[in-house]
């Protein structure tokens, strides 16, 4: 299902023309992350407050005295987007209840990169999600610390060369599998969890809108291509974002009330080489290493399909005493 091919046709009617992340920011050419931010904000609309972690998106959008933000926006530090957002949400809630601000819904949205979400920000994220703030957390995952010079994170995929996981005579680059924070969020009992990609804009924006409607925490893990860090051509950003889905390396799905659903179905997975080859960070991989990654993708994909096919919505689950008779 290729929504993107018909995007030109549908976009004028489906997408808000207003830009909330305005042009003129300092993102690199072909940056998938800022595209995700732009689409996210279009889906959110004006009644939001954004709590942004330190990182590329903060740096490129807020160079004093300029700002790219047309919506209220705050940045404090690297690891605390979720706790900062918790405070924003609590502040708005208290002020609304006490009639100190107008009585209307304002969504708090925390945004962080893979480092700010999966590594240094994981504790704050876990705490905020567990406490159940009415807040959407969006991880813009470009799979390494790009802002500081492409160091590996727990979001960096196996085999990727970064400046702290370089490939060498005795190393294939990153030697760990990508941490699955999406599943960690599901395990928190977060009512709406999804993966997304700006290469599937309508899918992404639909998920943001769904997440907005949740009265409570929601989490979207967005795969974002980084031409600078991945050593890929800037004009193939959208294509890479689609290849990662079509190869099954980053499936697009949502978990609503515990019920898994593939939002972009892939009939037959493409070989992983199609995704790895255009990227300099994977150029050194040997056929054996690629095979190992391929095997893992099949395994992970099937694990996900098992959940899609087998798991019930939490609200459908009743405690069945009969099980123990």
């Amino acid at each position, binding site marked *: 299902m290729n929504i993107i091919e018909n995007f030109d046709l549908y976009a004028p009617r489906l997408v808000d023309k207003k830009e909330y992340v305005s042009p003129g920011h300092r993102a690199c050419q072909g940056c998938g992350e800022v595209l995700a931010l732009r689409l996210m904000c279009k889906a959110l609309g004006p009644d939001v407050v954004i709590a942004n972690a330190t990182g590329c998106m903060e740096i490129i959008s807020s160079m004093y005295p300029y700002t790219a933000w047309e919506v*209220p926006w705050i940045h404090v530090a690297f690891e605390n987007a979720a*706790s900062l957002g918790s405070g924003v949400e609590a502040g708005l809630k208290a002020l609304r209840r006490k009639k100190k601000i107008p009585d209307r819904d304002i969504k708090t949205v925390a945004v962080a990169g893979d480092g700010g979400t999966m590594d240094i920000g994981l504790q704050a994220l876990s705490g905020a999600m567990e406490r159940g703030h009415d807040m959407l957390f969006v991880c813009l995952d470009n799979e390494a610390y790009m802002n500081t010079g492409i160091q590996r994170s727990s979001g960096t995929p196996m085999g990727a060369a970064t400046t702290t996981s370089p490939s060498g005579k005795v190393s294939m680059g990153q030697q760990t599998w990508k941490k699955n924070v999406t599943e960690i969020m599901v395990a928190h009992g977060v009512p709406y969890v999804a993966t997304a990609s700006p290469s599937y804009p309508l899918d992404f924006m639909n998920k943001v809108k769904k997440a907005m409607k949740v009265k409570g925490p929601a989490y979207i893990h967005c795969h974002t291509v980084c031409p600078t860090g991945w050593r890929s051509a800037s004009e193939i950003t959208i294509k890479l974002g689609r290849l990662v889905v079509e190869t099954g390396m980053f499936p697009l799905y949502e978990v609503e009330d515990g019920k898994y659903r593939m939002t972009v179905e892939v009939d037959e997975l493409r070989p992983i080489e199609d995704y790895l080859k255009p990227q300099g960070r994977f150029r050194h991989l040997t056929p054996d290493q690629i095979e190992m990654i391929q095997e893992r993708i099949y395994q992970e994909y099937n694990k996900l399909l098992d959940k899609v096919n087998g798991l019930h919505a939490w609200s459908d689950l009743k405690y069945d005493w009969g099980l123990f008779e």
Partner: protein
Amino acid sequence: MAKRVGMEVAIAAAEAVGLCNIDVAAVYPITPQSHMAEHLSELVADGRIDAEFITVESEHSSISAVAGASATGARAYTATSSQGLMYMHEILPIVSAMRLPVAMGIANRAVSGPLNILNDHSDIMPQRDCGWIALFVENGQEAVDLTIQSFKIAEHPDIMLPCCVNIDGFQLTHMVEPIEFPDQKLVNKFLPPRKPYATLHPDKPVSMGTFAMSDIFPEAMKAKDEALKSSKKTILKIWDEWEKLFGRRYRPVETYRADDADILLMTMGSMGETAEIAVDELREKGVSVGLIKLRLWRPFPFEEFKAAVRKAKTLIVTDRAVSFGGPGGPVSTEVRSALYDENERPAIYSYIIGLGGRDVAVTDFVTIVEEAAQAGEKRTVKDYEFYGVRG
């Protein structure tokens, strides 16, 4: 005069917060814990205050959460101590740079290495340069009064800086003291609802905490320094207003029998009351001694401090923290620096005392003063001494 009640000081401080119509509190029970957070949660649970109470997963998150809440225009409070304050450290200068008027209660306790949990000032001293207004209290009544004042000080349109109230852990926080609680109506008069300069709201979108490089960063630092320095005159006005409404007077440097004293003791925090007794005893013996107590640590009240020590021959500074490998204690360092350019200045004796909860008794102050009195100005002045420490 209102009725006095006996109450644990940490609980009294929380009661004081309860009088301040806060909107958000975020707290974490890092060891060591005080009853400030617990009692605040009780006030919320009983509906005595209408606030969001966020039980964060760390102190790093509690300061981040109150920063976020404060940015929406909410009146926000947090309390911490020791390791928790150290864990907040990264965020403290950001809160002041963003001019977020957060109020914080600190139950001062020793910083680990080895783990200790008892009272000294080694937690607040590393936060000295974070751009916060820092107040010290001497007893439970002051803890209550200054907690209420801290919101007004922080939020005042001429200040707009975070403010912390330092309450000695255990020595104060766990003591039951007689407290006179200010009347709620008078507190409302003293502390009207917050009028924020800018808030996070879609009706008027602003960007807060933007990125600044070398073309503007030094100016931002200078602006913060000037904001902190100039806050003193407003703090003085706020204390005048407090005195009119509640009858208790607060000054940046408090003095006790100091006007004609040759020897001055100097304390910060709860030791002041013990030192007063020592001064009385010594005066009876004919020793010309007085006491000065520093209430306002940041901004440092240079003018008031210099005026207070001008006539003294000897100044005995007590420090409750160490600047390892440096000039001794942070307070004596500050004091020496403040007096360096003065033509006439007292000889300064610097004592590091009462670390990690070690008791400082009246007799200890008497000993220190008598040593100084006997030696007079002939005594060799060491940079600093660890008082009563073995080894």
